[in-house]
């Protein structure tokens, strides 16, 4: 499955590795709901570190869309909230 880490590029992650990733993603969501910036930062970095560890970097000229997209490593919680909102931060 193709996963993008924003600002870093795309990774190909084997289906077997997705379970762990999903758990970390749940924790990230819970952290955002709790509004705790420190918890959010930890959860985000755990998720990104894990994705980088198990993922195989996609060639730069690949044009495949990603199934999953992760926020950039230096994103603040508010920023991610806005990205997930209806307006979104991603420019058209």
């Amino acid at each position: 499955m193709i996963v993008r880490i924003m600002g870093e590029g795309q990774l190909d992650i084997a289906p077997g590795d997705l379970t762990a990733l999903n758990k970390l993603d749940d924790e990230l969501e819970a952290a955002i709901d709790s509004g705790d910036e420190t918890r959010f930062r930890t959860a985000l970095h755990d998720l990104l570190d894990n994705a980088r560890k198990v993922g195989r970097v996609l060639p730069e000229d690949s044009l495949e869309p990603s199934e999953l997209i992760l926020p950039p490593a230096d994103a603040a919680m508010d920023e991610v909230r806005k990205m997930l909102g209806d307006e979104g931060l991603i420019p058209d």
Partner: protein
Amino acid sequence: MSVMKRMSMIFKSKANRALDRMEDPRETLDYSYQRQLEMLQKVRRGVADVATSRKRLELQINQLEQQQNKLTDQGKKALQVGREDLAREALTRRSGLDSQLGDLRAQYQQLQGEEEKLTLASQRLQAKVDSFRTRKETIKATYTAAEAQTKINEAFTGISEEMGDVGLAIQRAEEKTENMKARAGAIDELLASGALEDFSGPKDDIQAELDRMGSGPGVDLELERLKAELGQGPAPKELDPGSPAAKPQDVDTPQQAQWQQKPGGAQ
């Protein structure tokens, strides 16, 4: 729904909205390619902008470091001539620069990181744009309109995700450099107004005091030496021969000037 999933849906819906606006697949291809080239330009400008800010910070850091070294030297000289009060003043001012410098160095690190990230993003986008161009020509030459639509959608979704990502990266980098520019501007003003210069430029009061004393310790030392010769006091401590205080002849002191202007003074 999970964060990862929601983020990817946002990207996809943006790509779909853009596709819906296109009527003719060929138009989609060409229009998209134009947009990609524009985005590449934007990324390159972004990299250049960050680099400019970084160089400016580098200059400021060097200037402040020079000030620090100067104050350290002045502190040493002041101690050599026994003026602990002046030395304390020099060191106090130096520590005032410490936090400024710490700030600037941290910003510099941050900008370096941004520059690196954008450079890599620009390379990734360039590779994808090249790849899109090749695919665009293949699609135009090989497929019927109906077949082309599917192929176009695939390629378009992939590249538009990249464009969205790099677009946001540029925005964030711009915000960061804007903040830093404002702060760098404030420091430039300080440097220009002399608030930071006033103890290293012509108005340098610590240096003025040290210069003024240039003859002082020389005379005092001479006196001490004479006294010692005459057995009237302890021998003086030797001054560092490299210090200006040891070379009173270099300094045109107020005392000397007064002495020369005295009417009827011994010439």
